[in-house]
């Protein structure tokens, strides 16, 4: 997966959906953690540009706010930036001191950029020394299921992150897809027929679905 440039620095591509998430072992604020330590649980691995910066601080507060909702869904959070573990500890203590909010998840101190490179978190057009605002949603089998990339100037939307988790877990459980702007409780999309015969059957029988045509049918779970 790694390529080699003229200066012999390894260059890693972006990870790909539905493939195993790149393994890592990293120093964090909770000690040395491996990706495999999260096997059996969902994981949101996210990066932020730097500690002690304003947008990142609002994001950490927002992640802490949805943390109980994530735990209810069997999801763990793991942050990352190219800062030292001492910087992370100082920042987390400062956030707690100034806002009263204790950040309940660990942060990777990726000083060597090893994890950042494996996950394509650095966008040189934005910054060569900071990670962009990336979100990687990894399932209990350590497979990468969703990715979102935000620019440095844009804080993330926590409701969208929760929505993605809900949609993925619903798809896995019921073998359905979710339409645009779907929210839990709304109708889901049933898989389209993949033969002419089953398409005709879908048109004739509908199976209790709400159909626009044979290829677009919804149902209530």
């Amino acid at each position, binding site marked *: 997966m790694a390529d080699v440039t003229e200066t012999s620095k390894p260059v890693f591509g972006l990870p790909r959906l539905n493939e195993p998430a790149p393994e890592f072992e990293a120093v964090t604020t*909770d*000690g040395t953690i*491996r990706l495999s330590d999260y096997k059996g649980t969902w994981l949101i691995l996210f990066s932020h540009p730097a500690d002690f910066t304003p947008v990142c601080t609002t994001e950490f507060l927002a992640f802490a706010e949805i943390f109980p909702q994530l735990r209810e869904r069997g999801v763990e959070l793991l942050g990352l930036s190219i800062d030292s573990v001492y910087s992370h500890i100082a920042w987390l203590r400062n956030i707690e001191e100034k806002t009263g909010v204790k950040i309940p998840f660990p942060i990777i101190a990726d000083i060597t950029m090893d994890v950042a490179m494996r996950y394509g978190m650095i966008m040189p057009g934005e910054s060569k020394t900071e990670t962009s605002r990336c979100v990687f949603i990894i399932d209990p089998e350590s497979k990468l299921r969703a990715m979102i990339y935000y620019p440095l100037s844009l804080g993330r939307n926590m409701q969208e992150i929760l929505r993605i988790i809900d949609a993925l877990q619903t798809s896995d459980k019921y073998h359905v897809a979710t339409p645009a702007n779907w929210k839990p409780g709304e109708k889901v999309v049933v898989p389209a027929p993949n033969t002419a015969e089953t398409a005709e059957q879908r048109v004739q029988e509908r199976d209790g679905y709400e159909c626009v045509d044979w290829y677009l049918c919804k149902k209530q779970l």
Partner: protein
Amino acid sequence: MACINPDGTITPSARKILRAAETSLTPAELAAATDLPLYRIRSSLRELVQAGLLREQDERYVTTDAGRTRQVAAS
């Protein structure tokens, strides 16, 4: 290190794990017994086994004599 401080003493979470592992437990059982998330248990188990404070057999973990001594000393 999440379990062993630079001065050789053990952290509060390590103490909890060593106390819970007096009876042989799986990582999931240790997570339930200590109220620590599974990823922290797995990470801590590596460190504690390497330090000789826990012993692993058939994916179950039990505190060693050295671990018991260290746990009691920290209490």
